[in-house]
């Protein structure tokens, strides 16, 4: 059977990894290439690079780095951040990305999903959604979680899948940064509504949170996190062993 995936996410700004790290043996902790190699060697199943650069020069730097990472690291790479057009897809896919994640760009223009899926295949298009509870409903937020779009989340996700999104990343704003576990209620709801892979993001604070995620929602495909991996609170080799001993199928 398909293994459950563990995915570290690297935020990149002007060619450097933003969130600090403190791994032994890394000479340059903010080098995306060194960190990517470290995670790949640790058994990460996939890597997400999130480009939070705004400037044109920064974007160029990002694609240079992506090219270097993709020449050295042979696991699936997903790229997100600033993807607004099919040309943006083209730019990062040429540098070796396998999947491209859209968020605000798809809210502005939902047909971006359809165009990209048509050109590159559904498997290439990842719809990333930032969700927060507002007045008893799940709302989609844009611009890095700062702006309430008023859009109901489940309908938006279903629309995205019908347009060709091949995978969904659910980032719960309510649980993000709190480190009290993933948003099981929201994730279960999404898994019941769509038949494409769903990746959980936001809330992981320790290994047990990953075990709970996969045990409570057997349909969830992957757990994504940033700081718990970067700060060494959760070590991926140990996490995978622990998941396996809990009966969850992982790649060791």
């Amino acid at each position: 059977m398909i293994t459950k995936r563990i995915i570290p996410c690297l935020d990149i700004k002007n060619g450097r990894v933003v969130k600090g790290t403190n791994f032994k043996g890394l000479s340059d902790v903010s080098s995306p290439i060194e960190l990517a190699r470290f995670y790949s060697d640790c058994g990460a199943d996939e890597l997400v690079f999130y480009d939070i650069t705004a400037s044109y020069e920064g974007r160029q730097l990002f694609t240079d780095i992506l090219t270097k990472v993709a020449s050295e690291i042979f696991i699936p790479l997903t790229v997100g951040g600033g993807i607004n057009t099919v040309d943006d897809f083209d730019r990062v896919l040429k540098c070796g990305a396998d999947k491209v994640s859209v968020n605000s760009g798809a809210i502005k223009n939902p047909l971006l999903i359809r165009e990209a899926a048509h050109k590159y295949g559904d498997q290439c298009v990842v719809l990333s959604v930032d969700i927060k509870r507002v007045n008893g409903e799940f709302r989609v937020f844009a611009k890095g979680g700062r702006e309430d779009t008023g859009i109901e989340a489940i309908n938006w996700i279903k629309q995205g899948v019908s347009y060709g999104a091949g995978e969904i990343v659910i980032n719960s704003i309510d649980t993000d940064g709190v480190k009290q576990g993933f948003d099981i209620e929201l994730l279960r709801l999404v898994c019941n509504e769509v038949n494409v892979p769903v990746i959980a993001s936001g809330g992981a604070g320790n290994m047990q949170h990953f075990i709970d995620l996969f045990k409570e929602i057997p349909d969830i495909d992957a757990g994504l996190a940033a700081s718990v991996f970067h700060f060494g609170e959760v070590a991926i080799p140990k996490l995978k062993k622990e998941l396996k001993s809990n009966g969850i199928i992982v790649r060791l």
Partner: protein
Amino acid sequence: MIAIVDYGVGNLFSLISSFKKIGADIIVTADAEVIKSSDRIILPGVGAFEDAAKKLRESGLDKVIIDEAVKGKKLMGICLGMQMLFEKSYEYGCHKGLGLLKGSIVPMQDSIPANLKIPHIGWNALHFTRESYLFKYIKNNDCVYFVHSFYADECSDSVIATAEYGKQLTAAVQKGNIMGCQFHPEKSGEVGLNILRAFCEME
């Protein structure tokens, strides 16, 4: 020298990078003479079968690849490139493949349980069903990375490994000098590189 056939189907970046990583002498080409003078051939491919088969036919490279394979040159198809080695595909109609291996490409839909997601995407374990030199540096149950919605069926004489996804799906095939992987060795970490390494060293 290994000829990677470039017939305009999919992005070859990772495949080229992974061969470079293992130090293989490669050339990316659409030139029949270069393919003829190579000592091994890689047939890549991502996308729809009909479109890829058409492009290969229009380029005239289909005949070159068939001739070279029949003469005994080592040929490996990857993903859609593996599917192209078979007689035909039922992906949106019925389309003719290269016919180098017996069998046909069929949809997963209706042949795996409805609760399983399609495409089959992610890391899955290989189950060896026959010995192959391709597995020289890897172990049974090693995981590789898959992305596909169609699979090779009725190919019992060439299947060398399967992956369990509601049923045993064809994961790798070999018949003498002609072989293929349904998964992406160029995205399967060390295990994938080791399969490519074995292909390069195969006598």
